[in-house]
């Protein structure tokens, strides 16, 4: 699903000094894997996530997503990739205010072109357990419910890759747990999930953990708890450096 080879991302300070956020990182993630990315703040995990999400392009290296080399893509091409291949789940939900749940779910479909399938949006909302809340405004929903809407939105275009950035960070533990169960379920359906988190509890649901430190992959290990979740057989490539 994801093949990263020799990726670097170097930011330029205003005075011209380069600040490397990622240094020659390589790894791959197989289709259907559930991977958590962990690391202290400033370790480079946000940069990695931005590149994985095609929001940013690497300074060097290649990134193949679903067999397609996207590292040199233009803004427009990356928009297209995000639209069709990637579902985002954010820490602070990022739902549009003053908008109903189902309208939020429909947003990714707007950018595909053609008709927006409201029934599909309602269907997905039903799958995340919010069938009755479809017509409610975002402000009328609890945090956990809002994150469910966001997950439903990430599924709208049937993206094979879900990128979740601290999806439980703004939730109490009960709501966080239910969100994790939902993600685990989506994983069981065969979706690839990459999840950035600080939360140790999340480890119980994932198969594999990437630890990032100073722009390098410090460790890449399978998680024992994951064995219950029918792992995809793709072997992890050891991290370079």
């Amino acid at each position: 699903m994801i093949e990263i080879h020799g990726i670097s991302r170097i930011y330029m300070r205003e005075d011209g000094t380069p600040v490397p956020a990622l240094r020659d990182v390589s790894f791959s993630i197989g289709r259907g894997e559930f991977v958590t990315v962990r690391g202290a703040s400033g370790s480079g995990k946000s940069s990695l996530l931005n590149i994985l999400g095609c929001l940013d392009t690497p300074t060097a290296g290649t990134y193949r997503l679903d067999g397609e080399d996207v590292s040199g893509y233009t803004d427009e091409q990356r928009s297209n990739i995000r639209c069709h291949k990637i579902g985002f789940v954010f820490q602070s939900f990022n739902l549009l205010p003053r908008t109903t749940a189902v309208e939020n779910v429909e947003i990714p479909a707007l950018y595909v072109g053609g008709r927006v399938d409201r029934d599909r949006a309602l269907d997905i909302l039903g799958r995340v357990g919010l069938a009755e809340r479809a017509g409610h405004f975002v402000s009328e929903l609890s945090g956990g419910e809002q994150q469910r809407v966001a997950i439903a939105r990430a599924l709208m275009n049937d993206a094979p890759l879900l990128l979740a950035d601290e999806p439980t960070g703004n939730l109490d533990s009960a709501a966080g747990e239910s969100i994790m169960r939902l993600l685990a379920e989506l994983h069981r359906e065969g979706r690839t999930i990459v999840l950035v988190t600080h939360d140790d509890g999340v480890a119980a649901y994932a198969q594999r953990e990437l630890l990032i430190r100073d722009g390098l992959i410090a460790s890449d290990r399978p998680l024992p708890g994951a064995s219950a979740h029918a792992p995809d057989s793709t072997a992890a490539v050891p991290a370079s450096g």
Partner: protein
Amino acid sequence: MTWRHLMRGGLRQIWRYRLRSMLVICCAALGVAGAVTSVNYASGGRQQVLSRIQQLGTRLLVINAEQSRSVGGRARTGTIVTTLTEADYLALRRDVDGIARSSAMVSSGLRLKAGYLSKVAPVLGVEPDFFAIKSWVLASGDFFEAEDVRRSARVVLLGWQVARDLYGDQDPLGERLFINRVPFEVAGVLAQRGQGLDVINEDQQVYVPLTTAMRRLLNLDHYRSILLDVEDSQDMVRVAADVTALLRVRHRISAFRPDDFTVGSQQELIETQLAAASRLGFLVRWIGFSGLVVSGLGVLAIAWIAVRDRTREIGTRRALGARRRDVFFQFAFEASTLAMIGAGTGLGAGWLASRLAASQAKLPFVFDLDNALLALGMAVVLNFVFASWPAIRAARMDPIQALRHE
């Protein structure tokens, strides 16, 4: 994003942020309404000036018998001069080309008496063409004719104000009016004109046939003045020169003596008035234009704030697959839709306000469609530009930064 989604989503956003939407609409509407109203108001003013000039006679030359001279140490002018005679008048009509119409005139302030009411008013003895020259119409009754002049008929036409003063709401037609104790029959009442550009209120005068005034009222055999309506306004200077030359010869004025008459036109007055009107028009258009720009800046400011407030939304939409142009179109559509609604509303409001202003200021109501459309067009272009700018900013945002924006 298809057009249908763009429109539906845009209209929904407009409804969701309705306070802000109302602000944009008001802003655009006020700009257009202000421009339209002020331009129409200026056009109304110009229209009024033009119609007053029309009343004054645009191709009018007035010959006045005047000679400054000293009699017993006092300067005397005017009616004392007895040199402008019927023979002069006939010679003028015979020898000077390019005169369409003319009327000799005498005048004096005399006492009018109708029933128990009396007042002193200027009485003008004129020929029938006088009213044509002045493009004046009757409120009621009939003008007098050449026949009335020939037989010095005792008929009188009343200025509107005189008729009011002497007869109130009664119909004065056929009533008896004494002028210096001579009985006259009221033949007609002239239409109201108000104060002219020459500051004479013609509504406060009465008009009798020329010969009647000369023989029955004033006992004169010379004229106070002669009004000439020149056929072609290009000819004014030439006719004035011809008239001057002819009269100098007839009056045997030697080369170094001044004229004993003046030949004047209203040209200068008209030009001053027209210049003032067009200066006002220019000023008003400028104010209107500035108003438009200010309202456009208002639209810009609100659209700018909208983009800033919705930075997170922009980041989110970009992450979910929106291309730059999707974001641009979304914001440009929202802002320019509002601006268009506002401009349309402003056109209607401007029409109403123009009517109101015209009726309040007693000016003719003019809806200057060309200028209104110009204002509308400018508003549309300005607002589109001003709405696009923040939209471009929105489209250019780095999605990563936008997502992080608090």
